[in-house]
């Protein structure tokens, strides 16, 4: 039975990290209706910036973690300014494709740094002994990751619920013209959405980098891995991202825990999320918590 609970715990841990990674998609989509496929690359950049600050500049990891979030905040904002500002109002395929192009560009830039083809690992700063209770164990790295995730998610939820800027962002997502007419600067809101997404990506990158070590392939593939999470949760729901993240984390853990190695199956954790995704979409076409858009002819 403790094996089962271990799977549940690991699933929740992994799931909340997925949720944090998925948050970036939701933040951008919520206000600007753009699906940023290059998000994985931004996650990787965040992780690399954190590493560079910590190891090369010798800043304490907690400080560099926050610094990297700030740097990525502005990086993402400028990405929006340079590449996406021009495309406001273009068809959705153009916008998706621009983010795909962006993915290649960031790839190229990262290949110019040592991070492109070399492996690194963060200095260890947490106790190596895991937290254990009832035969279940979680590593400190993961625990800290989960705590940061929930702080971030809580902060963003509050931000959208209560702060003026957050509310204006929600207004833009609801109706761009109406919000323009009451004096909200729509381009600014878009920039801000990207910036906050960059911030969350840097946080996710820092956490994932601590768990897996820094390998570019592993880090940027996270952009693709969390797609099912984003979609199942509904593209515009933060709460949905959390729920779907945890669901997917659990599914993956149960799949690799109970299915792999039996009946000749292997690697089911990689494909099961997509199958579940398809099933959920067939029942609820806008994900679990996505807003059903009303279309007019």
């Amino acid at each position, binding site marked *: 039975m403790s094996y089962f609970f271990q799977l549940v715990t690991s699933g929740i841990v992994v799931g909340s990290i997925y949720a944090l990674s998925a948050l970036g998609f939701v933040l951008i*989509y919520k206000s600007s209706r753009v*699906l940023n496929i290059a998000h994985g690359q931004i996650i990787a950049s965040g992780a690399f910036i954190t590493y560079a600050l910590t190891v090369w500049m010798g800043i304490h990891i907690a400080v560099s973690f926050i610094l990297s979030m700030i740097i990525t905040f502005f990086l993402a904002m400028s990405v929006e300014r340079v*590449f996406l500002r*021009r*495309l406001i109002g*273009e068809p*959705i*395929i*153009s916008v*998706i*494709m*621009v983010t*795909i*192009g*962006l*993915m*290649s*560009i*960031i*790839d*190229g*830039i*990262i*290949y*110019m*740094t*040592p991070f*492109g*083809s070399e492996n690194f690992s963060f200095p260890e700063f947490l106790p190596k002994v895991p937290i254990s209770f009832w035969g279940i164990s979680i590593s400190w790295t993961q625990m800290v990751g989960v705590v940061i995730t929930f702080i971030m998610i809580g902060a963003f939820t509050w931000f959208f619920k209560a702060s003026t800027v957050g509310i204006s962002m929600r207004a833009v997502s609801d109706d761009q013209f109406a919000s323009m007419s009451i004096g909200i600067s729509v381009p600014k809101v878009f920039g801000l959405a990207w910036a906050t997404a960059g911030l969350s990506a840097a946080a996710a990158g820092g956490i994932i980098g601590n768990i897996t070590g820094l390998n570019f392939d592993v880090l940027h593939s996270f952009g*693709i891995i969390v*797609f*099912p999470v984003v*979609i199942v949760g509904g*593209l515009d729901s933060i709460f949905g991202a959390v729920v779907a993240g945890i669901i997917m984390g659990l599914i993956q853990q149960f799949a690799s825990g109970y299915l792999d190695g039996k009946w*000749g*199956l*292997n*690697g089911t954790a*990689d*494909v099961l999320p*997509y*199958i579940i*995704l*398809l099933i959920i*979409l*067939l029942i609820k*076409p*806008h*994900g679990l918590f996505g807003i059903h858009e009303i*279309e007019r*002819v």
Partner: protein
Amino acid sequence: MAENRWLATGNFFTSYRAEQRIFLTNIDRLVFTCFLLLLFVWPLVFEVSNKYMLVIDTILIAIVAVYGLNLLTGFAGLISIGHAAFVGVGAYTLATFARILGSDHVLLTHYWPLMILLAGGVGAVIGAIVGLPSLRLKHLYLVIATLSFQMIFQWTINFSRFYDQGQTIAIGRVFWFAGKVTRKQHYFFWYYVILLVVVVLGFAVRNLLRSKHGRCLVAVRDNDRAADAMGIHPGFTKVYAFALSGFFAGVAGALHAYLWRGVGFESFTLHHSISYLAMAIVGGLGTLVGSFFGPVAILMLELQVENIAEFVGHYFTAIGDVATAFRPLSFGLVIVLFLMFEPRGIANWWRITRTYFKLWPFRY
């Protein structure tokens, strides 16, 4: 028909039939025929290295695949980032035969035109099945549904023992009237086969778009509710678009398998799906000529960048990483620049150039 059939200085159509002609003027037809002749004759005149023949063959195959994607995304407005998986379906149809019957079975080596058609058929069936979610899903959610198909396809191939877990499954050399196609003739032979396929399917697409079966795709793209009101069944049309696209992809997959003499899952990954999409966009979505320009541009670009990267790496060895970074960087930049400055793709340049010559010596 009173108007001059050689020159058209403006729009003088008197019937819908006239507007729907494949070639508007006889000059168009003449130029096109000459160009086609040129395509068939040039390899006989010039000596081309295997590498370039391979590149050209690859481009032609990509054109076949992009026909399908363009129909789906450009004309029917359904974005797919799983197109490489459809191509893979075609290729793996052949691989299935190769696994059961052996790579040099008569069916594969002698009846290859049949196999290519069959691969297209299987592609169409799978396409229709994958298209089913489009009955309920729209926009980004549909995009992700096609992504799911891509992932499920990759996983299935990669973990099934039958397909040797994604390792290359060999396909034998084919025979034709003059016996076995040898290594020397291989790329040459397939150039003609694929060129023929490209031409035939190109006409097929052109004609499809002249008929109601093509126009219904555009109607659904522009507004599916309005199309519904006009008596077009949007759900059926979407599934049909997926099936069409699957057919082209399947044919491309079979050609791929024959050209590379093997099927390995690495040729049908998400990366390739993205490449196809990039080709369609750079070429020009929703235009037939775009399907030609896109693959040519993207694949030539890749080649040129490789050459330049090598050249740079040769002289500035210290910045070797910069040279390798060049490829993703340029690929990304080309897509982004096109979308920002020329969202209608190279097809639009083609239109501008054509108009210029048509109106010459006047400016408008």
